């Protein structure tokens, strides 16, 4: 059949000449390619010691944010779960009692909030849907596990610790939200 491109190379099997049979020019030619690469900048990194920089909008493991006073932002409104195309998010909600006012920002809060990391496709629609700036995707990776059940991340793994906050300023919505 007629070729569609001109990139095809025709293989020839004509006998080698005497110079070709010496192999030395071919070896030198090959070594030239090798030595040229010694001078070039290495493209790989030595992974565990060295890690690549992530893009500012890299979509990795989720975080459930707290506000400045350390209260959880999530009100279990369910918009992330309804936006999720992979149906990875589930939650149950409850009403905040008077003595929990320092723990949760609004009168309703998520008792359980689970993301199935095996289902999640890291599309970021949950953070886009969130009206309370509670869920964000971060540049952290989801570590490998031996059991399937360990990939279902509950609030213990998702909520950021009050004393070691997770920085998401790079991906935070820059414009001011119009609603309160």
């Amino acid at each position, binding site marked *: 059949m007629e070729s569609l491109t001109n990139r095809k190379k025709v293989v020839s099997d004509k006998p080698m000449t005497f110079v070709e049979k010496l192999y030395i020019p071919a070896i030198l030619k090959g070594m030239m390619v090798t030595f040229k690469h010694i001078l070039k900048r290495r493209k790989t990194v030595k992974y565990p010691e060295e890690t690549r920089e992530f893009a500012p909008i890299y979509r990795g493991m989720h975080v459930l944010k707290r506000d400045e006073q350390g209260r959880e932002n999530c*009100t*279990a*409104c*369910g*918009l992330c*779960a*309804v936006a999720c195309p992979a*149906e990875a998010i589930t939650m*149950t*909600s*409850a*009403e905040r009692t008077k003595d929990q006012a320092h723990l949760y920002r*609004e*009168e*309703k809060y998520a008792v359980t909030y689970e993301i199935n990391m095996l289902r999640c496709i890291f599309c970021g629609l949950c953070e886009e849907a969130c*009206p*309370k700036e509670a869920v964000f995707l971060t540049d952290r990776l989801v570590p490998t596990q031996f059991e399937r059940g360990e990939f279902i991340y509950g609030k213990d793994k998702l909520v950021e610790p009050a004393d070691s906050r997770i920085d998401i300023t790079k991906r935070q919505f820059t414009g001011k939200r*119009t*609603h*309160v």
Partner: protein
Amino acid sequence: MVKVTIDGIEVSVEPGTTILNAARQIGGDAVPPAMCYYSKLPGTGGKCRTCLVEVAAGSAADPRPLPKLVASCSTPVQDGMVVNNKTSERVHNNRGGVVEFLLANHPLDCPICDQAGECHLQDLGYEHGSAKTRYEEDRRTFDPIDIGNKIKLHMNRCILCYRCVFVANQLTDKRVHGVLHRGEHAEISTYIQEAVENDFSGNMIDVCPVGALTDRTFRFKSRVWFLKPMEAERSCTKCCGKAVVWMFGNEIYRVTARKDKYGEVEAIDQKTAWLCNDCRFEKKDASEWNILGPRVINRQSVIAQGKYATTIDKPVKRIG
């Protein structure tokens, strides 16, 4: 029979019909939205001003246009009247203003409100509201009140449509709640925190167009779009026992009356299918209901989200 033209569509209706009801006979985009008018509760309407329409010709006898927009829920049609609803720029702008007024004191706490997803104010704001608020003053705030052990009153969210007052007046023998004060200070109250205890008091949850009156047995249990509305019935001595049960798996999370496309309780056999409190609040066990099948949900509604089965399962009946 009188002839009236709404948005260029002619319809002949009984004399004395309001413009809104004539438009509902046409259906579709000709129907103005209504927040306070409730066809099943005589006397409602004329309060929220969302249903204002433009009358381009008063009647065949006097074809001059009416100078101001009129409330379609309480204006009877005249023969030869020409009404513009969707087609009028003036009506559209005015409705945006009305929504802004209704939202002036509304807390916009949809993420925690149980009504979200089936809220008429949400729909109205989505269609006519502006993306930004111009309101700079503090909104008036109230603490949520328990009226009885089944109903929660969030006065913050109330738009003072008076529908719940009409429910109490017309369905129950003794009304214990009403609207206190006037104008900006008006609020729904039982005055001395009295519990609303009546077999039919739960219907004020169904008629409330916003999340001001919500079901305490369903409070923060789930979001409506995660639940599956199923038509169900049971034999009840107090009411018709025809309801919609909102299920999650095999569990009934809440029970509401069957509502039509205008959000009003449907009439079954010429009688409005109000529910008694027993059916609404106490019967949460699936074995107590005869479940007929999935309810038809508008495909555009958030409640239809993620319910792929509804197109396969045969719905009980088609609305509109």
